[in-house]
């Protein structure tokens, strides 16, 4: 039993209190330790992914209690990939936060950041449904702190909405877990899968209620349509690096749907057949449509990116809701793309907001306009799913997975039309922000509109480079995902086939094979 699996949880759990208690007053030391922690996490998750890519499912029994009685951590291809994605994203976000000075605008950014990483990594690794709830709470409570980092009346009020919405989600999660426990008597996911499969016909009503309640919880997290209201306000008002990091939190919802509804409430179980897919697919299509239409209607950049994030969650959930190995492979590829692209767009939006304010309207030309417009262009291509970046490949795979399905026409139409809408939304924003510039005269809506100040910034040779390094890093990630699409896709397909053959997972967790 290798102890490497527990490290992505233990490492941030050690670094965060250390930052909080020992080096609270030294921002430079905090930055060093935070970056070092993220780099170590990246190394660990690379090693974990290398181990998981062989197809073995590794189980880590916490406290050495055997599976259905103790809590287990499970490392399979999906969880390893998600932890790796988290650490890559975290590196870009922490570099951006340091470079742009966001981490100095309030206290305890780095400590909360590490706690957030701990929660996310735990949610991906755990093999126990109640433990999933606990890690949800860990990542949420850290996210509440990060969400209101830097303060300000609007941010605090958006923070209240965000916290209230998520507390209701947590309550619902407990109701769902209680219902499931009352029927099955277990909360270990593998054991749960066995018990649900063995249920007699009279008990299915209650377990179906539990399954749908659980889906609602994950839909809140993943911002699926009727439950997406919290996202635009929260993400648009959150500090940009935090919004970029929150990109992985919606993916936690998507991951949980993918995990629970292939392993426990699988599409082939009589208990849950047709229960999830029938509801999730229309909701996902609507999410996609509303998100992309929202990019057309948004009046400031951050809100536009938030709506684009909802749209990309819609695409992802369409792929998940088809529940075939092919579509799950497409979904897994698209998760990586969507996380990186959303984070990149939030960071680019922050660069724009820092220089000229967030309103999508003409304003004086900003410093580094050319470079930022190129980054915006690249990010918009990625978000809208245009060639040559990986969003195009991802969408193509989703379309391919929908081929031959009864809803093929609908899915194709929605995805293609919303792509066009997204291109229009981004083109409108981009041309207003970068091309329709006014002469550099002071305007009251603009924080740095003073002509002399702009000249001074442009004359300054030392523009903060680290934010650009972070954004270019994400762009390189997207490009790499495109260039190495073939190995990435074969990993995604192997992951999907592992998901749709849950017997390996169950046997590994419940110790039915010699390890």
């Amino acid at each position, binding site marked *: 039993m290798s102890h490497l699996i527990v490290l992505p949880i233990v490492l941030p759990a050690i670094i965060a209190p250390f930052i909080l208690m020992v080096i609270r007053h030294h921002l430079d030391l905090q930055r060093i330790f935070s970056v070092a922690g993220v780099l170590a996490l990246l190394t660990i998750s690379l090693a974990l992914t290398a181990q998981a890519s062989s197809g073995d499912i590794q189980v880590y029994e916490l406290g050495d209690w055997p599976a259905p009685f103790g809590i287990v951590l499970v490392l399979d291809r999906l969880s390893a990939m998600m932890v790796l994605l988290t650490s890559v994203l975290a590196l870009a976000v922490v570099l951006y936060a340091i470079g742009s000075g966001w981490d100095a605008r309030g206290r305890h950014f780095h400590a909360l950041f590490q706690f957030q990483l701990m929660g996310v990594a735990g949610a991906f690794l755990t093999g126990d449904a109640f433990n999933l709830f606990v890690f949800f709470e860990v990542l949420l409570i850290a996210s509440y702190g990060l969400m209101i980092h830097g303060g300000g*009346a*609007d941010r605090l009020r958006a*923070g209240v909405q965000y916290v209230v919405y998520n507390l209701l989600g947590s309550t619902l999660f407990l109701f769902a877990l209680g219902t499931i*426990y009352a029927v099955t008597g277990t909360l270990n996911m593998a054991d749960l899968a066995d018990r649900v499969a063995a249920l007699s016909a009279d008990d299915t009503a209650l377990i179906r209620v539990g399954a749908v309640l659980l889906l609602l919880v994950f839909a809140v997290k993943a911002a699926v349509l009727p439950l997406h209201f919290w996202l635009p306000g929260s993400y648009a008002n959150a500090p940009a690096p935090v919004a970029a990091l929150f990109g992985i939190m919606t993916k936690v919802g998507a991951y949980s749907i993918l995990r629970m509804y292939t392993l426990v409430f699988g599409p082939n179980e009589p208990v849950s057949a047709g229960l999830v897919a029938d509801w999730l697919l229309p909701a996902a299509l609507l999410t996609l449509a509303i998100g992309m239409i929202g990019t057309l209607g948004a009046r400031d950049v951050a809100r536009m990116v938030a709506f684009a994030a909802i749209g990309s969650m819609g695409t992802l959930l369409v792929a998940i809701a088809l529940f075939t190995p092919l579509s799950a492979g497409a979904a897994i590829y698209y998760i990586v793309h969507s996380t990186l692209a959303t984070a990149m767009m939030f960071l680019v939006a922050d660069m724009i907001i820092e220089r000229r304010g967030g309103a999508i309207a003409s304003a004086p030309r900003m410093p580094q306009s050319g470079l930022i417009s190129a980054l915006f262009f690249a990010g918009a291509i990625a978000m809208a799913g245009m060639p040559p970046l990986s969003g195009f490949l991802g969408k193509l795979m989703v379309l391919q997975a929908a081929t031959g399905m009864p809803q093929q026409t609908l899915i194709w139409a929605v995805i293609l039309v919303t792509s066009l809408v997204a291109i229009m939304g981004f083109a409108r924003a981009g041309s207003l922000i970068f091309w329709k510039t006014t002469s550099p005269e002071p305007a009251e809506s603009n924080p740095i509109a003073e002509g002399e100040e702009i000249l001074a910034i442009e004359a300054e040779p030392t523009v903060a480079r680290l934010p650009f390094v972070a954004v270019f890093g994400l762009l390189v990630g997207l490009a790499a995902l495109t260039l190495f699409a073939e190995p990435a896709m074969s990993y995604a397909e192997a992951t999907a086939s592992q998901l749709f053959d849950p017997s390996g997972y169950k046997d590994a967790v419940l110790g039915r094979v010699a390890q």
Partner: protein
Amino acid sequence: MEALVASAVAVLTACGVYLVLRQRTFPVILGISLLSYAVNVFLFSTGRLAQHVPAILNKYGDATYTDPLPQALVLTAIVISFGMTALVVMIALGAYLSSDKDEIDMTDTPESGDNA
């Protein structure tokens, strides 16, 4: 006893949902507290209701016992919901003090009109 517990959960949930739908922050926070009490009682009852029995097996394994796991779950849930309630009170207080409003929606701020 089942009817009593079930109706208690139902009343708590109904009051909680009603309060959560109010416009001001304070009733909403009260509503969340009520909902978390409801869910705690509900979780407690998921291990079946049993009176006057211990939550452990004796060493011969022949004693009747009540399921200890939901009690552990409730303990975790109580701690988490308590902490979360304290946190949301602090954030709501900060929001109120910095903006002089305690409406939960943000429709009156111009840049977030579509957010209600």
